[in-house]
């Protein structure tokens, strides 16, 4: 894992001090809320429906056991005993009090954490593949690149007041597990004639105008990465729209100019502005890579233990994956049990999990963009023992990738922007499709739920997407079908008129029946069937008989 240098430490400390000053000025009335807003947003502090919300950065989703313990402590001492993992691998606390926030930031800085780049119109925390560095299908580990970009983008003097927020994801495999194609910039490590570099995508995003990113560069040399990112950001900062918040993301600029014209502007800036000092040399690259080595794993021939326990076997099938080192597994911890809001975790669970990660996974934990956790290196011979421990904590729900593993935004239960509730919908789905065998029949299936058009619950890219709307004071839910956030990314199509909450589960059942009926073989998943038969079949079954 990355360890802070003295420079990182000083930068974070000075930022914490600055923020203390800003909070004081706000409390004294020297700063208006309007002036304080962008400053608090630079420190991850939002004002929500009922209270402030603090979003803490977890760069590329990697946590150490001591960091998780600190998060547990903060949830307990300053919040209401829980935290919520987000779709960009961060964690948010929903009830901090403004005067406490400088103390929280101080506590975080003790474990090399902070809340910068988690909000505001800046370059946000960089996200990545949760299997980075441990999966066999990887060209190169993307995490060091995320760290290089994190450093370059932190308090960037030129790019801290962009037209809108700016999200970057980096992946190192053909497979996209980070929703890279719906980011403002997506980077994929690729190999060309023995040289590794980046394929660059730009202008993806969700919200009210969902767009899949366009490729802007087939191959970017590693040394040019930061200069090229600067060229894109420089173009966006100057040309991006500022007259309308809904048209301010880079996706709209790219769409309005067209990718070819946009590329010309970027290339011109790249030529004129490239700075030798921003080129990354091999020594610096190697230095960053040295932080991301595997712990001392001992390859062995142990297979995952078999037990007679059915529940255990289901969990092993669904929640574990092979590690690239033989004898080890990657274990998913689902935060989607039927009775809890997706992504929520209590301080007791965090505390216990911190210890579990020390006992079973070299003190490492990861956060996935699908709002689950991972223990990255678990010895196969310890899997059963681990399951027992996780089960005691209600953290052994066997549903990774199944219908009840929903992505869901906080919705109207917390969020000031929401037009409908989303958490109760996800809980209804989890309760309705509780049985493991029923879920298995439905196979890989991603339901994603947003409580408003801003799409924080990624509904556009759900195989089944659910969008909560307000219709004359009543909550209605619009369904989209056929979205995907993977390497074959696509935006879902609206199936038809929306449903009141009372009819939503029936509608989902009808959709699933259409899928089952059209499935040609057992292994054909929902998305493949949808793409083969088209939306008409689903529409017909959903609306023609009513």
């Amino acid at each position: 894992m990355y360890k802070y240098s003295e420079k990182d430490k000083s930068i974070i400390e000075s930022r914490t001090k600055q923020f203390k000053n800003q909070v004081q000025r706000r409390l004294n009335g020297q700063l208006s809320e309007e002036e304080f807003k962008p400053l608090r947003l630079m420190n991850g502090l939002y004002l929500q429906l009922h209270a402030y919300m603090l979003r803490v950065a977890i760069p590329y989703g990697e946590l150490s056991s001591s960091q998780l313990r600190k998060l547990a402590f903060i949830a307990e001492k300053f919040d209401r005993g829980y935290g919520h993992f987000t779709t960009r691998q961060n964690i948010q606390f929903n009830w901090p009090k403004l005067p406490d926030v400088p103390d929280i930031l101080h506590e975080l800085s003790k474990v090399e954490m902070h809340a910068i780049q988690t909000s505001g119109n800046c370059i946000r925390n960089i996200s990545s593949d949760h299997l980075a560095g441990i999966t066999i299908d990887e060209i190169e580990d993307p995490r060091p690149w995320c760290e290089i970009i994190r450093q370059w983008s932190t308090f960037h003097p030129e790019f801290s007041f962009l037209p809108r927020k700016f999200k970057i994801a980096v992946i190192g495999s053909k497979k996209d597990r980070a929703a890279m194609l719906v980011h403002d910039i997506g980077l994929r490590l690729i190999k060309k004639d023995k040289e590794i570099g980046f394929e660059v995508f730009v202008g993806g995003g969700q919200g009210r105008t969902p767009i899949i990113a366009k490729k802007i560069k087939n191959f970017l040399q590693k040394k040019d990465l930061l200069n090229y990112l600067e060229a894109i950001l420089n173009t966006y900062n100057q040309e991006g729209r500022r007259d309308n918040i809904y048209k301010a993301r880079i996706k709209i600029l790219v769409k309005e100019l067209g990718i070819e014209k946009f590329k010309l502007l970027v290339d011109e800036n790249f030529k004129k502005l490239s700075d030798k000092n921003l080129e990354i040399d091999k020594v610096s690259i190697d230095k960053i890579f040295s932080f991301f080595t595997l712990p001392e794993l001992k390859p062995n021939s142990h297979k995952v233990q078999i037990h007679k326990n059915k529940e255990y076997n289901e969990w092993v099938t669904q929640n574990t994956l092979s590690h690239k080192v033989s004898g080890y597994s990657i274990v998913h911890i689902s935060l989607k049990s039927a009775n809890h809001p997706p992504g929520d975790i209590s301080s007791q669970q965090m505390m216990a999990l911190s210890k579990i990660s020390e006992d079973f996974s070299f003190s490492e934990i990861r956060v996935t963009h699908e709002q689950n956790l991972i223990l990255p290196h678990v010895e196969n011979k310890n899997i059963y023992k681990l399951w027992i421990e996780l089960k005691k904590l209600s953290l052994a729900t066997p549903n990774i990738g199944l219908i009840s593993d929903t992505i869901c935004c906080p919705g109207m239960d917390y969020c000031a922007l929401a037009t409908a509730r989303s958490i109760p919908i996800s809980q209804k789905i989890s309760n309705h499709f509780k049985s493991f065998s029923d879920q298995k029949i439905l196979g890989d299936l991603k339901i994603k739920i947003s409580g408003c058009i801003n799409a924080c619950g990624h509904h556009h890219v759900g195989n089944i997407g659910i969008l909560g709307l307000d219709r004359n004071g009543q909550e209605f839910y619009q369904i989209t079908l056929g979205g995907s956030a993977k390497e074959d990314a696509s935006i879902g199509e609206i199936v038809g008129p929306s449903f009141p909450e009372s009819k939503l589960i029936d509608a989902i059942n009808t959709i699933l029946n259409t899928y089952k009926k059209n499935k040609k073989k057992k292994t054909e998943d929902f998305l493949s069937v949808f793409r083969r038969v088209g939306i008409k079949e689903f529409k017909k079954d959903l609306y023609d008989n009513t």
Partner: protein
Amino acid sequence: MIILNKRHEKENEYKKINDRDFLDRKFFDGAILNLAQWVEIKKEFKNKKVKIGIEFSSNECSSSNESSMSEISLIQIKFETFKDGRPFTFARNLRKKYGYKGEIRATGHILPDQYIFLIRCGFDSVEIAESDKDIWIEFLNMDNGLYYQP
């Protein structure tokens, strides 16, 4: 209002030109023109040996207004709102793309919290209320000089 150059207050050598003087083409040393005025007299101004400044609104900080500023001794950028980040790129481009050597000054709605960013993007000075001087300097003093960017 005072002019702050890093930690030091300095005399303001510039003053906005009034409409009458502009109409009479009375360009005194240290006159600040707005962009529209500058565009209007640009051609006739060539080779006049007068120290002149131009004020850009942050809305005017587009790439099309960046070039050929070399004969201008002050570029003053008026932030309509501190949230508008275009002047940061504008200033940086003036310096890096066009090698602009004159003074770049920020005025309008700016916050002391932005002081270091302004300086790092190529601004030399800020125009602020005299009563805010201490807090601007305080923010500059909080800067430990450590940055990730060159």
